[in-house]
């Protein structure tokens, strides 16, 4: 509940503060950074989510909200400060999440339709 409000606030802030850094990262470097910083451990290698973390790809939230969340969250996810996760790495991670292809329709996967 708390969190959703915070996320919402971050999105609004992102829309207002148009001067904030735009993301122009590299998806390839981002995949490595995503693994190195351990995001995959809670969100899965493809951002699909797990018991430990929500789905964050495909179609990640706007960059400003994303960045604000990762830097300042105080919920179940640990915050990542700049000293640990640089702006460049964060932009690359975002580019990687943007590059994750849309999920297939589960109906087309025989193993999911026994």
């Amino acid at each position, binding site marked *: 509940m708390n969190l959703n409000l915070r996320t919402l606030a971050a999105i609004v802030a992102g829309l207002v503060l148009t001067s904030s850094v735009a993301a122009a990262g590299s998806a390839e470097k981002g*995949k*490595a950074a995503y*693994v190195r*910083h*351990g995001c995959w*451990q*809670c969100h*899965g*290698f*493809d*951002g*699909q*989510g*797990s*018991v*430990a973390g929500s*789905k964050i*790809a*495909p179609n990640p939230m706007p960059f400003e909200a994303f960045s604000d969340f990762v830097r300042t969250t*105080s*919920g*179940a996810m*640990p*915050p*990542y400060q700049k000293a*640990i*996760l640089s702006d460049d790495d964060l932009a690359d991670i975002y580019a990687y999440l943007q590059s*994750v292809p849309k*999920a*297939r*329709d*589960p109906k087309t*996967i025989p*193993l*999911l*339709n*026994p």
Partner: protein
Amino acid sequence: MARADADPKIDRRKFLAGVAAGAASAMAPPAARAAEAPAQTTPRAPSALPPSAKTVEAETKTPRELARVPGIAGSDFMVDVIKTLDIKYVPANCASSYRALHESLIDYGGNRMPEFLTCMHEESAVAMAHGYFKVAGKPLLTLCHGTVGLQHATMAIYNAWCDRVPVIVIGGNELDAAHRPPGVPTIHSAQDINALVRDFTKWDDTPVSLQHFAQSFVRAYKIAMTPPYGPVMISLDTGLQQEPMRDDGEKPYIPRYVPTSPPQGDSGAVKEAARLLANAQNPVIVADRAARTPNGVTLLVQLAELLQARVIDQGGRMNFPTTHYLTAPASAVSNADVIIGLELSDFWGTVNSFTDNGENRGIGQNSTRINPDTRLISICAVDLNTKANYQDFQRFQVIDVQMAADAQATLPALIEAVRSAIRNDRKSAIAARGESAKKAYAEMRSRARQAAAVGWDASPISTARMVMETFGQIKDLDWSLVAAESPRFNWPHRLLPIEKHHQWLGRAGGYGVGYAAPASVGAALANRDLGRISVCFQPDGDLMYAPGVLWTAARHKIPLLAVMHNNRGYHRHRLSQARRVDGLVGERPDQGSVRAWSRPQGSSRDGESGAASAARRVDATAVMP
């Protein structure tokens, strides 16, 4: 101690002890030996001498057969006692402190019922017994060196304790300080070896006569097997094992084992619980270790259908079919007005949430997940068996109706009481509840499939796909999912049709990592005898604690499909650290070595048994970029 009047002249096992003591003194410092030796007059010998015939024999040949003790050896009688209880296997790591019993099991007992299984670590031996019980419903015996071996076994005993699983542990111990050999056998002795595990065993004893042993062993078995089940410990004096039985015509008797029936909930409390459930708008059933046997599942389905109440299966056992439309996620507690918890290990955690985020002056956030007027009912046999030191009883939760009783044993009475408490005018509301549960269930399944589809084609393979690809291989067989340790890894319960009691066995209980590999091998042993295929999703860190259990699986031809969940790290631990530090040295075992380990131990894909095809699967699953 009885040992004082034993006849030492004819005791083969004392002879064995003598050999051990001789070996110990051969290891004495050279100075001490020089002091005993006659003065040297011969010229200095060359520094390297060929080994003597005796050394060659000791190093290269099977030890010679020794003469048997006349009459009956004490340890032979112990085998007679053990055999009355129909125990099939003794997974154990060998040790001199129980050598007489070991020898009697093989030579006198014929190594059948029980059969000795060679284990590489006492922790593996106990965990094998743990996994075995959850399939077979019968306990195993394990033997260990009373001090160092028991020290190795402790974590697995703690897991069995927390998971309410019976394991019978015998530790050999040389009590008689005046007779036991000095050196190693004395270092390996203690006044009271059982003290080490007393806080997390149901009962322990130190028999001092053969008659006492017979009573202790049958009592230990009976206590372990009375719900709530739990591990028990017997300290077995080496002297008592090695003595011949007295020849005065009096033979110790072996008490007959008669199972104790489990405790059933008080009839008044059962009635009150039934009244609350029958009148509830939205009752929810939560089960953790409720179904001890397949019948427990049948009963739970009956109760749920009678009430059309949704069931949250917390997975301590297979309690409720994942394919049943009344299956509900953990969040279903939030709309409940009555919640009944069956053998919950953590009632507080079921109805509250805790976020370890450093808030609230550093202790994290606690918040309730239920409405303030939700009524709570509990049936839990562990209430009868709470000890003070180890904190497996979890946070305190106030409960409205609580029964210190076994849930499965209480269900028949509860079902009857609910049936008579449901008024006719409630029946249509109950049926409507069922219809909305069906819708919620269909949505839940569809969400799970959609989540599984994300990253379906990704490399490394997603964990959802790993589970479903594995299932694709076994679905037409009689399969048993024997372990999938991480509670974060919930794909099996989200995606698989888990319908039978043996298709899911629950977890370690005490969260002692290093459980999955040996418990899987133990469960696979029981499944092997029942003609089933065992599968586990094997965490990498867990396997690396004591990978020698793969050798045991190969050696004793125990088939197990172990699919490596090779996330190359101590993932769950990392989660708890993530907030504070960005990666610690020591959080990532070199997982390349999972493969390196399993091959030389004879369990690779070319291995004799097909056991633990872990080695092959490492390549196939999550190899990180």
